[in-house]
């Protein structure tokens, strides 16, 4: 298959792309469900989730690296045979589709609440999806280049705001540690593992890497940095700032935290934070849209995935506009989280075993 607009990725590009896709939408919302599930020990759940999902990531990457010159759909066919691989590909496509629908719906809700209260959700979603489709139609390389430019800036904004909140954080709110035993954080870690949905999406980048020998190391460096320097501090600062009860009551806890930051020039800094976050969500959407088109094109044997990007736009828009209530959005996010756990943690185990049996690893 001819892959349009995809040049080989350098190790730096791979690192930043992973960071961009890993961060995605949940960073702004995850503290609330995690605090509800694990209380003050949510940070232990994050560490546990790192090892659980890290295992899944390791297996997926080992598999992809064993077939380093083949695209995801191709090596799945090699491993499972055409009919099962096709079914699995369809499953992955549906999962990614639902994931990106969920991400964009949450995103549109937030933009409406924070910035444009009178603009309808479909209009906000349409702007985002059209822009993402414009990027995805240009191919992988521009999307990755954009990540190289934007992800570091967004992360710097993110860290800057987190640091600015630090004086208002009360660490005593994080105590006691393991007051309710390990079972709660453990259960929460399984829930959180399903939320890290960008993990498998990046496996599809493996054939485009310049240096496959550094893929595993770089992936874990990126994932580790994300979990230990971004996700854990976010949770600790959120709980330290608001406490568990208030955090659980928030739809977007991180925005509430950043709204406490005061600088002389601007007020309501959550708007600035939201802009950085818009960029991250946009990049994730553009990448997943490209991936959806590429996998669909590979499955259908289509020559040019750009037309598929265009065809996906109305479908995505419909998906984003359909959930009529918060309950429906929550249900969608629970479904994708459960599917995420299966795809990230469970699925690679039989695939890895099969590959070993067939002598591919």
């Amino acid at each position, binding site marked *: 298959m001819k892959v349009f607009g995809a040049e080989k990725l350098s190790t730096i590009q791979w690192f930043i792309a992973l960071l961009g896709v890993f961060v995605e939408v949940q960073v702004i919302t995850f503290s609330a469900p995690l605090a509800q599930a694990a209380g003050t020990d949510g940070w232990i759940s994050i560490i546990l989730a790192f090892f659980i999902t890290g295992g899944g990531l390791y297996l997926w990457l080992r598999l992809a690296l064993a077939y380093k010159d083949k695209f995801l759909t191709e090596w799945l066919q090699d491993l499972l045979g055409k009919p099962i691989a096709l079914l699995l590909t369809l499953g992955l496509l549906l999962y990614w589709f639902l994931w990106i629908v969920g991400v964009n719906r949450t995103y549109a809700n937030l933009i409406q609440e924070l910035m*444009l209260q009178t603009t309808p959700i479909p209009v906000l979603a349409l702007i985002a999806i059209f822009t993402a489709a414009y990027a995805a139609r*240009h191919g992988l390389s521009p999307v990755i280049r954009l990540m190289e430019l934007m992800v570091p800036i967004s992360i710097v904004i993110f860290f800057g705001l987190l640091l600015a909140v630090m004086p208002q954080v009360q660490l005593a709110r994080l105590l006691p540690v393991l007051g309710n035993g390990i079972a709660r954080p453990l259960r929460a870690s399984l829930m959180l593992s399903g939320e890290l949905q960008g993990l498998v999406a990046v496996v599809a980048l493996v054939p485009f890497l310049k240096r496959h020998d550094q893929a595993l190391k770089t992936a874990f460096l990126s994932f580790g940095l994300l979990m230990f320097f971004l996700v854990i501090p976010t949770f600790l600062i959120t709980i330290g700032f608001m406490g568990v009860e208030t955090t659980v009551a928030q739809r977007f806890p991180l925005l509430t935290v950043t709204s406490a930051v005061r600088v002389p020039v601007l007020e*309501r800094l959550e708007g600035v934070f939201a802009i950085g976050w818009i960029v991250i969500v946009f990049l994730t959407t553009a990448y997943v849209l490209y991936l959806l088109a590429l996998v669909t094109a590979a499955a259908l044997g289509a020559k040019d995935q750009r037309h598929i990007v265009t065809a996906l736009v109305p479908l995505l828009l419909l998906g984003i506009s359909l959930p009529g209530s918060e309950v429906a959005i929550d249900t969608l996010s629970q479904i994708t989280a459960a599917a995420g756990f299966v795809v990230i943690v469970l699925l690679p185990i039989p695939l890895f075993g099969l590959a070993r049996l067939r002598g591919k690893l």
Partner: protein
Amino acid sequence: MFSIIKRRLQRVKKQKPKTVVGDINIQQQAKLPGERVRGIDKLSRSLEDNIAYLKESVGKSDDLRYRRFQVGDSDITAVVVWVDSLTDEDRLVRGVLEPLLFQTREAPPPRLSKGGILQLWTTLRDKALTVNAVTDTKDFDLAVIQLLSGRSLLFLEGVDRVLILSTQGWAQRGIESPVADQTIRGPRDAFTETLKVNVAQIRRRLRDPKLRVKLKRVGARGVNDIALVYVEDLVNPIILDTVKKRLDAIDVDAVLESGYLEQLIEENWLSPFPTILSTERPDEVAGQILEGRVALLTDNTPFAVIAPATFDSLFHASEDYYQKWQLVSAIRLFRFAATMAAIFIPAAYVALTTYHQGMLPSKLAIAISATRQGVPLPAVGEAFLMLFLLELLREAGVRLPTPLGQTIGIVGGLIIGTAAVQAGLISDLMVIIVATTAISSFTIPDFESALALRLLAFPMLVAAGSFGLYGLTMAILIMFIHLAAMKSFGVPYLVPFAPMKPRALLRDTIVRAPWMSMKRRPAFFTGGDRDRMDDRRDS
């Protein structure tokens, strides 16, 4: 007549000229542009036929001169043809006519056999004519093009060849200071409209035996000379090859200015961002060539174009390399900040005052609200009106003679601005914002980039006026996707930011590192020798 037409219809294989004398590399020139206009004919042994072909080709132009005479004391007729307006008649008389009419008298008249005529021809070509460049060719089309470039043609009865004589000369502008690329420090000479002078200005700066100047001709009707200038062991051969292929692919009536060339060879012709640099400064061209780029000089224009160009190179001025790195780095940071201001300030103002007043500190919000009291237009309308006026004044200022242009600036800036504020059509703050935008946009060294970036303020304004900061963010993302997808002769436009090249990023982008740390040339342009300098101070 029928035989002439028949001959012209027969396309014979192009023949390379046998002799190269003087400064013209005929191997390069023999490649004719625009085959849609003419075929290539052989010359006849009959002088009358040859003159008839010529007259048919160039038609009856009053500035075309024919001088028919007998060579020396012989009966052999020769004809010299030249274009009056393009020829230095003094050179023609001293270098061609005098030797042919007088000096050949001393030689015995040859016999009118085939061998004798050819012997005379060789003698004339190699011994008699005193012009600096003489080219012997059978290629009729080449001869016509050379004639229209100011050279003279010498035909001889019984010889199916023509001598192209370097007698060109016309009034030309002297070397003056640059108008568009002004600097405080650095050389004061700019390119002129004469290709030869421009090439000389580069050669004077780069006395490098590896410097190559390759001439090409483009244009089917207004044939023009293009010089490709590069250093052989620095240029990336893939980029050079791409440039050559794109030049060869040009099939246009005429290339009247290097801007034609720029638009005809760039890959992103839908984009407003220039992917080729243009300058009138020879020192800048020399500097860019030393980074491995290719310069294209076009005859009849004082602007050279340089390929490839990256986004960050649009913000570099030649004097950035003449001043101390700390100062230059600070200036470049100001330039980048000013560029961002030029694009985003009006849009951000509109977004904040229209949609997100809550993000502004209360005192500032009240102050803005007070200045806008009584203004009938919404903020976006105000901004549009003022930016439109600004562009109008700029365009009027450029078109008018310099003293009048300045007057227009003063009239526009002071009188119209003040009157508009007093009439309550626009707010004071908007005048400040638009003035800041204008001043910021003029800090961008490259004129075309400045124009493209300044005009971007309009779509940004539409986005911000429609969807506030969200719309503005999306518009910025679209702009960056566009930039990220662009390439200039295969080089990603956003390099070294994306793809990230950490070494290059820290050396010569938004900041400039000290010369001592810029020992290597940028990898993304250079094809050969990457070492720029060797620090021997400690040895």
